[in-house]
């Protein structure tokens, strides 16, 4: 039972990276980026290949980020410069990446042998976390990475560039009035988002020691569900007496008004937990995506959002 909880926690934390990416496109840019379903396995394919080639496991994180940003750049250029609708731009990227991923991995599946080191078994990791079990190391590393990304994003959203990014999804004409090209700002947002999604794919590859061409299916839906669950839940919490009381108390203020990025991590964990529960109740693996879709539909209906206005509601 404890094992199951820990593994769900690890899943939630790793997939939170994907949710951060989806949060940026969907909630901030108001851009339903289906390219996510291609960028996620792209991160995994690149990682599997590099690990097998003997590249330092930690370096694969950086390379995945860069490769993901490149995919985001592609979607952005297709949408902004070639003026293709947002949904279609994402679909084009997703479809193209399916072949690109097969090309990188050299097939539909690419397992990473036990003998090959991942970030969870690399000598540099063992030097610091050698005293822990494998799942202990997975938990610590995924927690640290999720928290680092969360803090960096929180800081970024407060910078001038971050404010401009938030403004472009909120009111693009304001960005034009500020003498800035709203298209470039959107492209930047897509690059950051897809970089994070690819990083998520990279970590999943480290964790499961495999790449599969179909692992991307449903990632956008997962990310959206995590964002909506987290943000809705925190909004509900924010209206409670407890949160209001905490906000009035200066040192505890941050507990009273948690950031959306924290909500995204919580949402990601809860969603993975729901799936985990369904699976442990004896649901066959083949039904996984069906459960994912039905759960997402439930979340949309219960949160009363139906998907059209996630953040602007």
């Amino acid at each position, binding site marked *: 039972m404890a094992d199951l909880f820990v593994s769900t926690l690890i899943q939630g934390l790793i997939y939170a990276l994907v949710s951060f990416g989806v949060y940026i496109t969907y909630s901030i840019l108001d851009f339903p980026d289906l390219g996510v379903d291609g960028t996620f396995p792209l991160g995994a394919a690149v990682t599997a290949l590099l690990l097998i080639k003997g590249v330092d496991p930690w370096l694969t994180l950086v390379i995945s980020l860069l490769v993901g940003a490149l995919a985001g750049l592609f979607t952005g250029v297709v949408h902004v410069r070639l003026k293709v609708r947002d949904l279609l731009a994402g679909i084009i990227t997703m479809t193209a990446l399916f072949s690109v991923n097969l090309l990188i991995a050299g097939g539909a599946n690419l397992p990473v042998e036990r003998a090959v080191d991942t970030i969870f078994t690399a000598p540099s990791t063992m030097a610091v976390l050698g005293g822990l079990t494998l799942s202990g190391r997975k938990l610590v590393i995924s927690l640290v990475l999720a928290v680092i990304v969360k803090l960096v994003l929180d800081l*970024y959203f*407060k*910078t*001038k*560039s*971050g*404010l*401009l990014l*938030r*403004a472009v999804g*909120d*009111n693009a*004409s*304001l*960005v*034009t*009035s*500020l*003498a*800035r*090209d*709203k298209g470039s700002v959107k492209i930047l947002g897509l690059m950051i988002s897809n970089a994070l999604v690819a990083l998520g794919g990279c970590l999943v590859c480290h964790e499961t020691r495999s790449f599969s061409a179909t692992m991307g299916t449903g990632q956008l839906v997962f990310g959206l569900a995590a964002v909506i669950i987290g943000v809705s839940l925190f909004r509900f919490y924010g209206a409670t007496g407890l949160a209001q009381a905490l906000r009035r108390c200066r040192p505890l203020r941050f507990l009273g008004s948690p950031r959306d990025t924290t909500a995204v991590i919580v949402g990601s964990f809860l969603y993975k937990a729901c799936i985990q529960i369904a699976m442990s109740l004896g649901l066959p693996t083949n039904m996984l995506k069906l459960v994912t879709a039905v759960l997402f539909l439930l979340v949309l209906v219960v949160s009363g959002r139906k998907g059209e206005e996630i*953040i*602007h509601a």
Partner: protein
Amino acid sequence: MLEVRDITKVYNPGTVTEQRLFDHFSLTVEEGQFVSIVGSNGSGKTSLLNIICGSIPIEGGDVLVGGKSIARQKDYQRYASMGRVYQNPAAGTAPNLTMLENLSLADNKGRSFGLSRGVNRRRVDFYRQQLQSLGLGLEDKLDVKMGALSGGQRQAVALLMATMTPLQFLILDEHTAALDPKTAEIIMELTDKVIREKHLTAMMVTHNLRHAVEYGDRILMMSRGHVVLDRAGKEKRATSMDDILTMFNQISMECGN
């Protein structure tokens, strides 16, 4: 100074609905002049603003600001020396950002948007003082999200944001049309004050004939892509509401409205 030189604008060219709105249309607005433009729907006043701002393309002619052509610049590049307040109070601000964040963005116009802190705490007093001068009690609401404010309050902040950095030109696009009469008056007075204080060159399109008569130092009436009335200075001050109304009814009749 703003100059619109010889512009031609054709809507739906080459189709049965082809409509030639401007045919070698020219207009010059002197430095520091505050021009009000009135005219019925379809007279071309909003198209003129959109042409100046680069929101719609033209088939011929040139737009010059301070003697330099901006016709080849993209819309966002033109805004480097221009400010605009829209009819929709939601258009000038970002609703999910706080007022402080909105003002900080406007304050940074013309500089780079890099990784330095978005909100400059040292400017807060300045923002507060600017908000105070609006007289709407907004100075205590810096941390409130823009979307939580009323239309009039948002429009006042939008006006402040549009004029925060040095401008060559301010465009007011029916900016009081979506407000209730009392708020419209307040915003109009604020607009006049800001234009006078900052010595701005401004162009205001309005459906409120009284505003056009009372404010500004030049009035233009447009009809079907032509200027049918143009009065400035003393002549403008001598123009009464009745004169304008009579003229307006006349052109409306010709258009079949």
